[in-house]
């Protein structure tokens, strides 16, 4: 069995939707069946898995004085950047150019390693050929090469003239080296032709368009153009306002007409129907019609000849961006040899807000290269951290064996664990613990917290503590030393050890026996892990002096405001030995 290191998970109050936004007001933890409406928190419940987080994952909202978890926090995007070139992309570019890097950062389609632009040296020209112009410089071409799996873009027939702005060059090349026109270029050509004027020019243009292969981008553009023109026509001569502009479907007259169609009944305008009926579908390639070519025999023949590993896997296909150079569906990638380089997806730096009060809880610096934070309110600086270690007391047989981390627990034999609570804040805390006497689940273990209520001192400076230490040397030292005499005294109601800002207490567990009765299901995964739910309630006093400057008269001294926070946590202690 895999050894288990002890862990602490904390439940975020957001799973209790009613308590979001207001400080939780727990019932007395001395009654083991804690929380307001619910029963004791069951860490084995299926929903519990989604609300438990280690302390490092939790944030804290200072206004609400509540824990926030990654599930309930509201995120906002601060910056977008490419993870490969670390270039910050302004969010306005995202709408126009998409959420991928538009410079030269690409991933190998085969092994997702980074592609680097390398120059391909042209072989020296054949000296037998008579070259009239010997002074012609050799034209270096570039290609993308993967340094891990040695894939090269020359395998799909793509080479580049310049080593930068590969994304733009790639948009103009199809697999195999043939060039294609991008949307911008097509628009410009169309404009040019329309400027030259005349029916003949327009006819020639449409013929030329029909002759070319219609790729995904052009088909979409043609279709969109066609449909906008279709939508414009029915409104012509509607109420005479069409001369003012191409209002299309959003003009107020057409809107009211449409609404009458739905709500009116007898009230609708009999003219309206005939107007709408003037729309038609696209019939030519120029308008966006693409005839399906259902003959896939060449592809099937190729499939017969190729290996299974020559076909692209589903992850490879899904990670390919849409190939604008190929017709829709017919350009569907089937083989490894037609995979194109994948531009990197942009990543984000996000700032997090409390969902209730909109207070910013975490805000990174906008600059991509700095990993610092402007604001960072993590739970680790507000709630005490719990560390667990096993305590081996000397039994009647002799001296204590050293505690081995992750050792299996013997069923039905009492074990002791030392829980150390460390206080991160600058005020002293009063901690009250509550744990159910029996752990929930099929094999309940007995749990006894020997000291459920204690105080932890404030997290003052080490130097202050050292100065104070000189005053009360002997009395504190005997308390602090984990000497031999305290090892044997596991007393109820007394803490185990105390330090500058931490307190250790003992928890006694009698693990359950994992023997299965007849008719019971077999042991489920991780059912032998001993987990105890514990309700932690902390109270502390805060000086309210500096906060409200505009408070009324009568506040000359600092008011001590009592604050409290309560939450469930789950302590995973170890695995119980089976059999």
């Amino acid at each position, binding site marked *: 069995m895999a050894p288990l290191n002890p862990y602490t998970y904390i439940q975020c109050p957001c799973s209790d939707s009613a308590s979001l936004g207001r400080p939780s007001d727990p019932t007395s933890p001395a009654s083991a069946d804690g929380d307001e409406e619910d029963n004791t928190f069951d860490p084995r419940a299926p929903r519990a898995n989604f609300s438990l987080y280690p302390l490092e994952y939790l944030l804290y909202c200072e206004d609400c004085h509540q824990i926030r978890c990654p599930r309930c926090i509201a995120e906002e995007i601060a910056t977008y950047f490419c993870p490969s070139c670390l270039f910050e992309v302004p969010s306005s570019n995202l709408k126009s150019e998409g959420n991928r890097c538009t410079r030269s950062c690409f991933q190998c389609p085969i092994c997702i390693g980074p592609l680097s632009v390398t120059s391909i*040296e042209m072989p020296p020209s054949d000296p037998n050929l008579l070259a009239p112009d010997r002074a012609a410089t050799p034209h270096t071409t570039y290609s993308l090469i993967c340094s891990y*799996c040695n894939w090269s873009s*020359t395998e799909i027939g793509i080479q580049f003239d310049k080593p930068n702005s590969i994304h733009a060059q790639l948009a103009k090349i199809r697999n195999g080296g043939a060039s294609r026109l991008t949307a911008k270029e097509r628009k410009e050509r169309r404009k040019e032709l329309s400027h030259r004027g005349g029916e003949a020019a327009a006819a020639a243009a449409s013929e030329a368009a029909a002759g070319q292969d219609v790729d995904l981008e052009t088909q979409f553009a043609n279709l969109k153009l066609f449909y906008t023109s279709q939508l414009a026509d029915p409104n012509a001569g509607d109420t005479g306002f069409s001369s003012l502009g191409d209002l299309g479907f959003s003009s107020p007259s057409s809107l009211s007409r449409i609404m009458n169609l739905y709500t009116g009944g007898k009230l609708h305008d009999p003219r309206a129907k005939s107007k709408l009926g003037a729309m038609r579908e696209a019939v030519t390639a120029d308008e966006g019609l693409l005839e399906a070519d259902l003959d896939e025999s060449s592809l099937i023949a190729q499939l017969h000849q190729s290996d299974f*590993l020559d076909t692209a896997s589903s992850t490879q296909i899904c990670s390919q961006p849409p190939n604008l150079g190929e017709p829709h569906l017919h350009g569907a990638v089937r083989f490894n040899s037609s995979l194109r380089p994948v531009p990197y997806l942009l990543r984000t730096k996000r700032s997090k807000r409390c969902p209730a009060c909109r207070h910013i809880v975490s805000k990174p610096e906008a600059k991509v290269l700095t990993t610092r934070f402007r604001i960072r309110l993590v739970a680790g600086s507000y709630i005490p951290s719990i560390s667990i270690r096993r305590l081996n007391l000397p039994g009647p047989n002799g001296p204590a064996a050293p505690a081995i981390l992750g050792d299996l627990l013997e069923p039905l034999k009492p074990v002791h664990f030392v829980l150390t609570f460390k206080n991160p804040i600058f005020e002293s805390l009063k901690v009250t613990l509550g744990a159910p006497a029996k752990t929930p689940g099929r094999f309940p273990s007995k749990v006894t917290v020997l000291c459920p209520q204690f105080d932890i001192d404030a997290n003052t400076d080490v130097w202050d503590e050292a100065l104070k230490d000189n005053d009360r040397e002997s009395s504190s030292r005997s308390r602090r030393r984990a000497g031999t005499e305290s090892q044997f005294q596991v007393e109820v109601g007394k803490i185990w050890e105390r330090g500058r800002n931490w307190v250790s207490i003992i928890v006694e567990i009698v693990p359950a026996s994992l023997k299965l009765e007849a008719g019971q299901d077999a042991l489920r995964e991780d059912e032998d892990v001993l987990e105890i739910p514990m309700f932690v309630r902390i109270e502390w006093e805060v000086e309210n002096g500096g906060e409200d400057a505009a408070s009324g008269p009568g506040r000359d001294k600092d008011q001590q405001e009592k604050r409290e926070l309560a939450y469930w946590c789950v302590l995973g202690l170890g695995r119980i030995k089976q059999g």
Partner: protein
Amino acid sequence: MSSKRHSILPAVSAGPKPPVHFSSSITIADSALLTGTNLITISSESVIHPRAKLDSLAGRITIGRRCVVHERTMLGAIGTSGKVTEQAVTLGDYVTVEVAASIEAGNTIIGEGTTIGVGSKIGAGAVIGKHCTLTPHTEIPAGEVVPDFTVIYSNGMRRIDKRGVADLKNKGQARQIEVLRRMIPTNPAKFA
């Protein structure tokens, strides 16, 4: 041998001194480990880094021209089969064996221009083709035949390298060897 040891690794025990046939232009470091009973042949301009281990107990070791054998490699390791053959390990020309790679004995042949990645393990009797690339920590089972120009990457995945850069790689290797010759003090007389 100096009495002061700085390394935390266990001391390497010296074995029998093997018969060697070195070309005059090789670079072999002083702390390379050559043990065994059979002939070890190293052809012209090859480089053997410090602490490379060549063990010819299970057969001869032949290293081709312009090869580079890095540190902590083990050529001629006796694998689980433990068979002894005439020729333990053969490296073609321009082969690079990276750090901590291990090539087992037993008629193992590495083709010309192949790069054996860091930490790879080649089983006994494997035949690796020419100009292959084995990415770091690949394991080739015993007796496996790898065709020419194969790239073995990820978890045993294979593909054919179509870059066509074999000549360029050889030229690059030659230039690298020129630099290494100046950096590694050679002492072939120690092993003769």
